């Protein structure tokens, strides 16, 4: 992690989707959040978004196998930009299921819950893939208060 702080700071975590990597990522995000003086709620929401994106990357992009993942967090004045990159199969946005949350349990469909949580925790979530390079990115932005 780069020990820069405040606006313009860039923090990078690189690792593999192996056992315990989600815990490492949580510690990384907490450290960045504290350095940037985010409040507890903002840190939790960023942890949630990063955790869901990383779990998706492990499950869908690498299909449960080990693969490289990079998380980059940038802070620009009042906005936080988080970018996850993997080099697996990727996740196509148009194929993402939309969860149907209803009060009636029998109708409840939880497919796509993780992506929904990412969208609720952050202000903007976009998925992109570069064909040929096998590089997939999830970019998430959050306005800071």
């Amino acid at each position, binding site marked *: 992690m780069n020990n820069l702080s405040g606006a313009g700071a860039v923090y990078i975590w690189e690792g593999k989707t192996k056992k315990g990597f*989600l815990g490492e990522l*949580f510690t990384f995000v907490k450290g960045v959040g504290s350095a940037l003086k985010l409040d507890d709620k903002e840190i*939790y929401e960023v942890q949630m978004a990063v955790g869901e994106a990383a779990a998706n990357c492990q499950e869908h992009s690498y299909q449960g196998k080990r693969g490289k993942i990079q998380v980059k967090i940038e802070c620009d004045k009042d906005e936080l930009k988080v970018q996850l990159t993997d080099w697996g199969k990727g996740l196509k946005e148009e194929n993402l299921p939309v969860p149907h949350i209803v009060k009636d349990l029998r109708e409840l469909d939880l497919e796509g819950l993780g992506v929904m949580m990412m969208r609720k925790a952050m202000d903007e979530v976009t998925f992109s893939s570069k064909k040929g390079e096998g590089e997939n990115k999830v970019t998430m932005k959050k306005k800071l208060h």
Partner: protein
Amino acid sequence: METTEKVYKRYTILRVSGRIDAETAPSLEKQINKVFSKGQYHLVVDLGGVDYISSAGLRVLVSALKKVRRYNRGDVRLAALSARLKEAFQLVGFNKLFQIFGDAEDAAGSF
């Protein structure tokens, strides 16, 4: 994540601590299914020691709720959620699915 199970005549209290994420959620599911396999469908899940819950963890709890309510066999009631956890449930509307109590004793007393 760690779980501790306390079995009573009319209900079981499962105390959970740590982080419930994609890696640890299967272990929680196993613990809950173990309670159900003994024929006990009145379950209190005490989340007082949990500092984070992911979509995988929420799915496990909702799936447990579906199982017990399917034949009106009982209920899964939640207790001692931190402010952050409450927000996570509210974010996806699951606070409307579960009965949520301030502590495990109140949740157990409601059965």
